[in-house]
């Protein structure tokens, strides 16, 4: 295991200066995520327009570099995408983290693929997987308009 594979420059940079941080104005969907093992929490805010496109997506929360960077990158990747494509990207991400699958979607450009793949090192650190995936599950919950809080210990054990 090489720490630099986990803490790549992209991750450190997003961890220090997260994009889309804060509450976006006019959000019409939101969801909360919580990891009871460490106390990390995240809140995802979405503005879905009438064509079901993600017009705005932002987040608030506290957590480690992995979780903040993962959330920051996530918001960049799904912004402007349709609800359907956004969910597809989430699935690709989760498959990459859990089983090491490659990112195949054509819905991301090369730069975006580099960003999402910068998180692939997390797979080597099983105890950190939930840090990386919490906000993605929370995003799905927000997209689906679910009310219940996403909890890593109830939901992300598959």
């Amino acid at each position, binding site marked *: *295991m090489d*720490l630099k594979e986990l803490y790549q420059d992209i991750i*450190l940079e997003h961890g220090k200066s997260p994009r889309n941080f804060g509450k976006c104005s006019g959000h019409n969907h939101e969801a909360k995520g919580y990891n009871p093992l*460490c*106390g*990390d929490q995240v809140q995802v805010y979405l503005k879905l327009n009438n064509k079901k496109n993600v017009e705005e997506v932002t987040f608030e929360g506290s*957590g480690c*570099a*992995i979780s903040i960077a993962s959330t920051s990158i996530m918001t960049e990747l799904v912004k402007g995408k349709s609800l359907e494509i956004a969910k597809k990207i989430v699935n690709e991400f989760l498959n990459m983290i859990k089983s090491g699958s490659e990112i195949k979607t054509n819905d991301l450009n090369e730069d975006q693929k580099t960003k999402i793949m910068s998180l692939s090192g997390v797979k080597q650190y099983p105890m950190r997987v939930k840090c990386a995936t919490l906000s993605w599950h929370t995003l799905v919950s927000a997209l689906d308009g679910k009310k219940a809080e996403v909890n890593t210990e109830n939901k992300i054990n598959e």
Partner: protein
Amino acid sequence: MDIENIKSQFPIFSKKINGKPLVYLDSSNSSQKPISVINRLDSFYKNEFSNIGRSIHSLSVNATNKFDETRMSVKKFINASSKEEIIFTKNATESINLIASTFGQQNIKKGDEILITELEHHSNYVPWHYLREDKGAVIKFAPINKDGDIIISDLEKLISSKTKIIAVTHLSNVTGTIVPVKEIIDIAHKKNIPVLVDGCQSAPHLKIDVKDLDCDFYAISGHKVYGPTGVGILYAKKKWLEQLPPYIGGGGMISEVKKDRISYAQLPEKYEAGTMSTAEVVAFNESIKFMESIGIDNLISHERELTNYALEKLKAINFVNVIGNPKNKAGVISFTIKGIHPHDIATILDEDAVAIRAGHHCCQILHEKLKLNATARASFGVYNTKDDIDILCKAIENCRKVFDLK
């Protein structure tokens, strides 16, 4: 005290983690096990295994005797008055639950108050919360000051005519605060209030004398005292154990069972239902022998020296913030690093085979008070050395490099 000799008794230290020698700084979570304990588990299962107390055959008689020998050793180790006061449980959590449940059932009604502190581990809060939910009890929290000390006069102010029990930790698993429990017990007893002491962290680090403390209840986890998992101890004054109702029902805890009535066994069996962690309790005797072979005073002075050395070294690193500054502190040091989350610290330290804990350490009330989501924690055992501290500090320096912080 010959640390090299002590360390060599722990087989885990001959293993490499990530290709490096293990620096184990997570003993507050659970301690490593000396070879004598491991061998005893092995030999008991190989040569002596039987369930206890139920059969007449030779193996069972021997197992029952060995189980009882551990009870006698525990009695001596904590200076209890009789072996009837020593109840084996699964862990300290179960010990506290046992008292919260049975004491609550008998003595707590709506509006009654339970006094705990902001330092408590969840296992000394959640069981009392059940009484808040079931009985409408009120839980009060004695506050800590900025150093992480309980202010006795503040605690005293929270005692009222409705206070039915005080439950307090002997040693904080986050700040390392050694709580003056004897003083608290004196105050409580003047008002006829019983006191439960959570001794989970203190048992491996302090001299425990329940007679001197005069506590009503004392809870210990065997796995933190160099013993196997699955062994907890509840010390309770005999008058309480006689008076309180039984807890878990089943085989072994009964005297006579009829279709219309059941009577319960004498102490300590009244509180030991079902098959116990037989081999683990037998092997726990070796843990006590191990502690006694070192001598608790030697162990205390070794850990004090180590703690002072670690505090000095950590405080010298300008980006490390040590949490709390209690008057009396044991070998538990929680800290944060500016710009790096404790989880990231733990991952980076693990690369150097430095095992620490990161998170809220089952103390969310305390972390809320400290306005922190999480902390990193290094905690010591008898096997730790100053070299371990030096490696820890070097690994902490490496965190900044990985994060490219100036």
